[in-house]
């Protein structure tokens, strides 16, 4: 049954973001702010970088504010000015990615001014931007969200999001896939990967894909076939899932942007589930210097040594 989701706080949240942005740009706390602005299509939003207090009025927060803006602060995106502190509008899921990037020495907390968003959810990529937010139109990641109120930010509007209990869409799909035989599972992924066109949208929006030269772009030697064919497609998505294990914070941007609807976040959620079971690790708001796969403790599972 479709349940509507209350997003009435977003108007007040937008107001609060604008006022804070105006203040911190005017008093010089930050040199620029990465946030969301309305775009042409009805109900749509797009990322914007503002550096003048006059532009603070452009900032919004709506169910169409789907992007994880953390990507604009990574090495892959050198165009964003880095002189002085930069403000950024973050949902809880985005903040987890920023915390991960701080842990990996890609960003320093003192260089950022975090404007947290109390978030009741954003829209799935499959619906038009003007769609009302409901349990059907909500992004799958939001059905499993434990981070509606980002912690440790410099500013968070006072409104509290209300969301009804929801069916955890990834957990359900992972359970379905786990129940299949390996051959059936392979057939499922083979079909999904066959749609990949190697547009690399998944990589380009991923905050953790910050390598200045991706292994998959190298051709001396060629590590992964670059053509959009079964071997190269499968290699690419598996390499990426493994590289993100223990790092991915679940923003699901890869899946949202895939023009071919490949459910990429399922791979990442499955890896996160394994990490939870093996190392009791989950991506959160705290900054950890070492992720579970680059640290060792005696409590680690040793059962594979035979």
């Amino acid at each position: 049954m479709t349940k509507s989701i209350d997003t009435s706080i977003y108007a007040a949240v937008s107001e609060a973001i604008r006022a804070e942005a105006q203040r911190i740009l005017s008093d010089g706390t930050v040199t620029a702010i990465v946030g969301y602005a309305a775009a042409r299509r009805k109900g749509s939003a797009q990322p914007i970088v503002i550096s003048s207090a006059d532009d603070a009025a452009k900032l919004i927060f709506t169910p169409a504010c789907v992007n994880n803006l953390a990507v604009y602060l990574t090495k892959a995106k050198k165009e964003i000015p880095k002189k002085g502190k930069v403000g950024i509008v973050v949902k809880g899921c985005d903040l987890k990615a920023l915390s991960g990037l701080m842990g990996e020495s890609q960003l320093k907390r003192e260089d950022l001014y975090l404007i947290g968003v109390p978030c009741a959810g954003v829209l799935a990529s499959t619906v038009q931007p003007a769609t009302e937010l409901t349990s059907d139109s909500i992004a799958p990641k939001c059905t499993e969200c434990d981070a509606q109120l980002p912690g440790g930010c410099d500013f968070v509007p006072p409104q509290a999001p209300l969301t009804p209990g929801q069916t955890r869409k990834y957990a359900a799909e992972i359970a379905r896939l786990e129940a299949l035989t390996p051959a059936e599972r392979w057939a499922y992924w083979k079909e999904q990967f066959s749609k990949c066109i190697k547009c690399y949208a998944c990589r380009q929006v991923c905050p953790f894909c910050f390598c200045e030269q991706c292994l998959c772009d190298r051709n001396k030697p060629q590590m992964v076939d670059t053509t959009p064919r079964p071997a190269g497609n499968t290699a690419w998505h598996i390499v990426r899932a493994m590289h993100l294990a223990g790092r991915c914070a679940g923003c699901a941007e890869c899946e949202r942007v895939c023009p071919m609807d490949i459910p990429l976040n399922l791979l990442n959620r499955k890896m996160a589930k394994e990490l939870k079971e093996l190392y009791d690790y989950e991506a959160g708001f705290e900054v950890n210097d070492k992720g579970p796969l680059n640290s060792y403790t005696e409590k680690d599972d040793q059962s594979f040594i035979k």
Partner: protein
Amino acid sequence: MQKFISEQNLHTLLDKLIAEGTRVVAPRMNAGTPLYEPLKSASEMVADQLPRRSGKEAFFPLCEDIMTYEKEGQKVTLKDIDPARFPETVLVGVRPCDAAAIPVLDAVFSWDYKDEFFLERRKKTTIVGLACTSADDACFCTAVGLSPSETRGSDLFLTPLEDGGYACESYSEKGEALIKGHLELFAEPGNSRAVSLAQPQTEKFDLKKVKAWLDEHFEDSSWDSIATRCVGCGACAFVCPVCHCFDIVDEGTEKSGKRRKNWDACGFWKFTHHASGHNPRDQQPKRYRNRIMHKFKYYEDKFGQTLCTGCGRCIRLCPVGIDIAQIVEEISKK
């Protein structure tokens, strides 16, 4: 030639073609995503959704082999792919924005170099267009001079009728041949009216004015404000009906392998990255500028055509909401 064909007879026609060995390509669902793909049966066709990728790949595939090599001892054998082996194809249910793209592509693929892969497929393919009945606010075919009933590029054009079936009109010898070869499946045109077609809401662009501005503003601060947000993927180019850049790679082992042609995209940082390490388009806004320039200036300069059919795919699928219709409209008002 004007005719009528019922939904059922259209399916019969397609099944007959498939049985005769003709490759029939039409919108079908692939793991939940509508794509133009070869049909095994006419019942697979889904006419009510705009395929996620355009129809260009029936002529210019996402990836194709162009040569093979084999090495045995000191002997190296190179073999060209023979385009004569490409099958006769009927491309059906093509949206006007996708059909109109094909004559636009003819210009570049038959210019100074004749691309026999494209041209041979083109020669062997009959395009059956389908009038468009639904538009969203990313659609802007009307802004670039096309429309939901545009027949350009179609050999045969179908318009859905209120009482079911399609009005069917041929626009080329190929289209006429398709009717004449299966005359028993077509009837004389009746009195049924066409269903109401899509109505994209965008105003017509003044493309002359757009080009005039582009002619003078290769360097302009607006490129930064337009495209700083671009994250450098290839989604826009890969779903575009007229983007046609490609890359060539060799894949295989020391003993054997293939030379392959893949789609490329000007959004990629590697796009014009020289072997020296220099890149004339070293920042994302410069790469995005190339996208706009190529579509609304360079292609006009070279071939007198606009390299955009207003399908809106790049708008719907841009990860960061870059809206080419808005950008071009703003340029036209400068």
